[in-house]
């Protein structure tokens, strides 16, 4: 039994944590929050140069070959810092889609750019309201040209290439690679301005198919794998929220004593701790499944996702509550986490979608 990250990866994690503490302070996150920049291009170049974006991309395609456990520990730190960079869109989605469904030529063409940060990728799935479902995919590809409307597309406004879920003339769902400059893009206002979200209006834009994996199964497989990595981001964000709340509860005095000495605060923060520990343990199992490409991966992913969404939600809202009034101000950083928790909680489908999927998988497993 070795259910922990290796010392080497713990070192990677500690280094990443220290690096982001210095290079990604809340003031940097606030540049995106305040609309000064869609993402931090400076930070993006730095972390790409460190090999983070290509952590799980094989070295043959310009990646660092650190593997999925490496990508998991980095995802946790990205989440902890609320980093305003398209890390998930590039590393968990665009690169993964190409690895999953791309041809050898497509891998050679696109992965090195994704790995070194010079190409920003995104994944366009949703077409307005509603959770992920094959019936919700209406975008269509005819004669190599894609037509349809996708929103919201995370990091869509800053991306160079998009992986778009669409149907062909035979009605089969597939993943298509599109160059974003051909798309009519509009930036959307959202509850979390630290992540760009855009609307894509595609009118007969050139699209090349990623042919090696097709159907809704391919989309779901991509989502499952990404869900584990997003769960690590959520765990990082939840951990940071709990740390903030704890620190404040020890420094803030009321009724002549630190508020952290009151059971009302202790029990609240213990509830957060419990949710976080369960989420972390489920995420670790996901990391194992991702690395081993285990048959258990879909169930592990749904479980990690349900747990992590819950933990970040509780941690970020109770962080504000522990701070009291100041936690509700623009100036305090509590809302950065609160916004991020909702944004991540909705990414690739909200909690009801993943709970449903989890029970689907339990039913399938029990039937087997």
């Amino acid at each position: 039994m070795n259910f922990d990250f290796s010392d080497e990866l713990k070192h990677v994690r500690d280094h990443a944590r220290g690096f982001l503490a210095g290079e990604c302070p809340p003031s940097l996150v606030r540049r995106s929050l305040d609309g000064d920049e869609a993402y931090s291009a400076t930070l993006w170049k730095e972390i790409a140069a460190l090999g983070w974006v290509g952590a799980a991309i094989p070295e043959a395609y310009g990646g660092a070959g650190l593997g999925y456990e490496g990508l998991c520990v980095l995802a946790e730190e990205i989440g902890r810092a609320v980093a305003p960079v398209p890390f998930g869109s590039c590393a968990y989605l665009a690169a993964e889609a190409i690895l999953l469904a791309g041809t050898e030529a497509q891998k050679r063409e696109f992965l090195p750019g994704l790995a070194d940060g010079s190409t920003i990728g995104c994944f366009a799935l949703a077409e307005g309201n509603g959770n992920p479902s094959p019936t919700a995919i209406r975008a269509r590809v005819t004669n190599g040209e894609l037509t349809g409307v996708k929103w919201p597309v995370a990091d869509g406004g800053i991306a160079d290439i998009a992986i778009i879920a669409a149907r062909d003339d035979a009605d089969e769902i597939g993943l298509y690679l599109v160059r974003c400059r051909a798309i009519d893009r509009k930036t959307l206002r959202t509850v979390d301005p630290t992540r760009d979200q855009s609307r894509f209006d595609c009118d007969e834009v050139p699209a090349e198919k990623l042919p090696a994996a097709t159907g809704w199964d391919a989309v779901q497989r991509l989502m499952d794998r990404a869900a584990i990595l997003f769960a690590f981001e959520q765990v990082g964000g939840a951990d940071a929220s709990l740390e903030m709340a704890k620190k404040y509860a020890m420094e803030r005095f009321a009724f002549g004593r630190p508020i952290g000495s009151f059971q009302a605060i202790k029990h609240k923060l213990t509830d957060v701790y419990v949710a976080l520990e369960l989420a972390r343990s489920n995420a670790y199992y996901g990391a194992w499944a991702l690395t081993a490409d285990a048959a258990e991966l879909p169930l592990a992913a749904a479980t990690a996702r349900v747990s992590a969404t819950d933990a970040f939600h509780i941690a970020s809202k109770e962080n504000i509550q522990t701070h009291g009034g100041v936690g509700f101000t623009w100036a305090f950083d509590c809302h950065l986490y609160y916004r991020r928790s909702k944004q991540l909680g909705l990414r690739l489908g909200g909690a009801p979608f993943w709970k449903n999927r989890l029970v689907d998988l339990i039913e399938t497993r029990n039937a087997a």
Partner: protein
Amino acid sequence: MDFNDTPEEASFRARARAFLAAEAQPKGTGRPTLRLGGMVGEEVTRCKAWQAKKADAGFAGITWQKRFGGHELSPIFQVIYNQEEEDFTVPRGLFEIGLGMCIPTMMTYAQPEQLDRYVQPALRGEEVWCQLFSEPAGGSDLAALRTKAERDGDEWVINGQKIWTSGAHLSDFGIIVVRTDPNVPKHEGLTFFFLDMRSPGIEIRSIHQMSGTRHFNEVFFTDVRVPDSQRLGQVGQGWRVSLTTLMNERLAVGDPARPDVDDLVALSRSLVIDGQPAIRNQATRERIAEWYARAQGLKFTKFRTMTALSKGETPGPENSIHKLVNASKLQDIASYGMDLMGEAGMVIDDDLVEAWGMFQSALLSSPSARIAGGSDEILKNIIAERVLGLPADIRVDKNRAFNTVPTGNR
């Protein structure tokens, strides 16, 4: 990351599994064991026989020193044995406190000749031990206990009352913490002993619980004499000794309680809501998913603990998470399962009730799971103070002589 045993762990696991396969009944082949009543004669006999069998096969006292009949293996092997035993139905419930708490406390504080006398019979299930801690005026606030012991030559004379003592009526010996000095602050006036449960002056009355069963007892002490040689630790050091006992409580692994989320899934498949199985209902699905995620989270938290154990680390207060999460989950799953049954959920007639009545049984017994062995609230204090590092509560009784502090209902 991997879930592989080391070669040594794998061979131990295989041995444990072979032993259990030969001697015990696999779980899931019959109705689950429900502790519907207090333990009766034949169940006690079965428990004792099983413990002796375990000892003979080398699966008792796994971590204990060899001189006490143990095997001097690391705690990871205890966890491995427990994991294997979870797949079988074995007679349980009589020795957890003695072997998990009383004897480890004795090992820390008793004299070598006392250990020679008491450890082996306990390990072999020949003698049963109980723990006499809680009192009517001292539950969560354990150090507020009032049972007193006064010195009389080489003996101590105990007067007072203990409560919530599991298995007192089945026990041969007990460990007890009592007040020996009421004139100093509460934690400083306590002393710890072990005693013969058949000593004159001990009267045991079972408590009729809200579940209808009688598992716990009240134990009354009237001029009970205990030799000073049975004192564990110094006079006035009883609190420190108690903490040793309670530390061991956290390491004891509880029975995986039923109904669990798998039982709820099975129930949801068989019950019908609006013309289709309840498991097709969105509200039910979300509840199942939430409990499944919590159960898995605990399972993998245990794996993380095992990893730490196998690296030689000592488990700490973070292990309070298991009981804290499990107790409420049990109560909530029990209640929700009954909700799915509709009005019929209240019926417990043997020939009508679903799932052998385990949901109804757990509804009535689960409140004790959230109180016994550290209430939810105390466990949350422990996690908040000792894991998260939040400041201790301000205590109005800390530096006052115990006999000036209001206790109980006053």
